[in-house]
């Protein structure tokens, strides 16, 4: 039993959630397997992704960044151009369709940066479902624009004040809500985390990112890129980007995680660098924890990376060495944010800015005539106020 069961990635993954959720998770798993094979579901999903989200998202050649960095050619997979401004909508639509199929009329979500909350509130409005979003009280402050949008869309925001009042606590609270309302409610988990089948489902709905990028790149360049980069919070945009390339051994894969203020516990969210194996929010994965197995609060300048765990598939890819995960500090991310904004005319999300920092190093190492694709996971409108505040502190 265990490691060879579905839902495990090597030793990571599985289902370690309260018993009250098990039946719902099993129902979700079997429904999803059924829907995955259904042509009708596939068509429906593709319909909304094309006509509501705006997929496929473009692959932009970043001419000025390429010149500035002086190495590999830089390409951007433009998830920022999706409706609601980030990759989160891909998963929200997919899961809302599952919820609808299961006859659940209420959806709930957790959110850090607010992008997943926004995506869920959006599909809730579109499909006419009652929507509740759990958001850390700290994040309601620092991502206030998204919090306001969520409410405007008719969803209810429930600010969570426990603990650090960020994504970890919002996730716990959403799980508690689900335990209470499991028969009427679907919990749209926002990243590739949580008990099986969530990491698999979220990855599948985000896999459009990588498969589109791969085929578009191939069509235009008659080859595959030499490397790809994405930022890793819970790990949904990155696993979506990586998945189509995992078997392409010639493609180097890089993940950027939040190095925060430094290496001390509590200063970062660098789970793949400093995490140890453990159990949190229903999954066995790498977690930032102390010597007694208590979870250490995470920190990142970007609310979407501020989580002490990571999706189990990333833990596995890190262990096997297939993906090279690197840390990016708050300062480096902020610099990359400004650089990309001014050079390319694209304001990236602070989360994505972490990926740009890693990409710059990788581009230099690769050298000219090589190609690098960055997953531009979302746009930075939500971060403008926070960045201005941080720049003010810098002076």
């Amino acid at each position, binding site marked *: 039993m265990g490691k060879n069961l579905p839902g495990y990635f090597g030793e990571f993954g599985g289902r370690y959630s309260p018993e009250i959720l098990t039946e719902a998770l099993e129902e979700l798993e079997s429904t999803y397997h059924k829907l995955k094979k259904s042509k009708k579901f596939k068509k429906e999903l593709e319909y909304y992704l094309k006509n509501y989200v705006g997929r496929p998202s473009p692959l932009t050649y970043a001419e000025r960044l390429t010149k500035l960095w002086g190495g590999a050619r830089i390409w951007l997979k433009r998830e920022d151009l999706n409706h609601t401004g980030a990759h989160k909508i891909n998963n929200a639509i997919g899961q809302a369709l599952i919820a609808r199929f299961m006859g659940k009329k209420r959806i709930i979500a957790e959110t850090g940066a607010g992008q997943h909350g926004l995506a869920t509130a959006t599909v809730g409005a579109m499909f006419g479902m009652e929507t509740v979003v759990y958001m850390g009280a700290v994040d309601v402050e620092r991502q206030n624009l998204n919090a306001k949008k969520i409410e405007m869309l008719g969803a209810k925001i429930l600010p969570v004040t426990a603990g650090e009042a960020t994504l970890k606590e919002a996730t716990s609270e959403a799980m508690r809500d689900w335990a209470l309302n499991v028969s009427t409610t679907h919990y749209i988990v926002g990243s590739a985390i949580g008990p099986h089948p969530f990491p698999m489902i979220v990855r599948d709905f985000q896999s459009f990112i990588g498969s589109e990028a791969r085929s578009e790149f191939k069509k235009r360049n008659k080859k595959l890129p030499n490397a790809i980069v994405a930022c890793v919070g819970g790990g949904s945009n990155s696993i979506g980007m990586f998945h189509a390339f995992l078997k392409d051994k010639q493609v180097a894969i890089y993940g950027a995680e939040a190095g925060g203020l430094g290496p001390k516990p509590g200063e970062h969210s660098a789970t793949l660098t400093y995490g140890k194996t453990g159990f949190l929010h*229903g999954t066995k994965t790498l977690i930032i924890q102390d010597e007694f197995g208590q979870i250490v609060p995470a920190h990142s300048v970007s609310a979407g990376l501020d989580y002490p765990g990571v999706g189990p598939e990333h833990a596995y890819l890190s262990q096997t060495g297939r993906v090279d995960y690197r840390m990016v500090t708050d300062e480096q991310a902020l610099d990359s944010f400004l650089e990309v904004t001014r050079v390319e005319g694209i304001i990236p999300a602070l989360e994505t800015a972490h990926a740009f920092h890693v990409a710059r190093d990788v581009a230099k190492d690769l050298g000219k005539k090589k190609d690098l694709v960055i997953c531009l996971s979302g746009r930075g409108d939500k971060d403008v106020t926070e960045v201005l505040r941080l720049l003010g502190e810098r002076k």
Partner: protein
Amino acid sequence: MSKIKSLFESGRFKSAFIPYFTLGDPNYNDSIEFGKTILDNGADILELGIPFSDPVADGPVIQRAAARSLKNRFSFDEIFRVTKAIHDHKPETPLVYLTYFNPIYHCGITKFLDRAKESGIVGLVIPDLPFDTEESETLFRELKVRDMDLIHLVTPASEKKRIQALSKTSSGFIYYVTSFGVTGERREFSVDLKERIKFLKDTIQLPICAGFGISTPDQANQISQYADGIIIGSAIQRVIEENGSDKTKTVTALADYISKIRASIS
């Protein structure tokens, strides 16, 4: 025979009273006094909570207790020291731990169990470790070697097939979760509570104890008519929350509450 098994077979009570509280709230030494008070006033089994930073199966009262406890420096040495002191006060009463799996895993399963047993613990309740995981099987094996019990949770949502499968790696008693959601006091319970418990009794050859949401003597009395035991956590923890800064007051309030519940289920 495990200590819990022989207790239920002794026929000493109609329904067992199983109180719960979190160790270290507001501090470790006061926990010793609270534990002794609860034992003196009629606990048949005592559940001691090892605080965890992210208690997803717990409602606000127990969450806050864990948070207050973790403001003290957490260590297993302290947990075991306090446990031992409570155990020494009344060695015949079985003590069990309720905690989440991560701290146990981190401590190391065998090391944790050896030290827990030395401190007087005879069973574990782990709300985030489903029975059908490799870790649960390992734990069950290791507990058995030590004559300790793995107490599983069954909920109103658990299906028959799962309940039957679960009975293979359960011992001690079954913790029957009376309502949907997390721990916390409730006014009502699921309508078919009695039938569910009866079904469980017929399916699993273990005592069925009901918990989650019970707080008043009336509720305890009513449920004790058909359950083998009554588990109360949040209501006790609230007594500690409301009086905890004043140890003497807390001890009095706990003694009063515990004896009332014990009397209501006799």
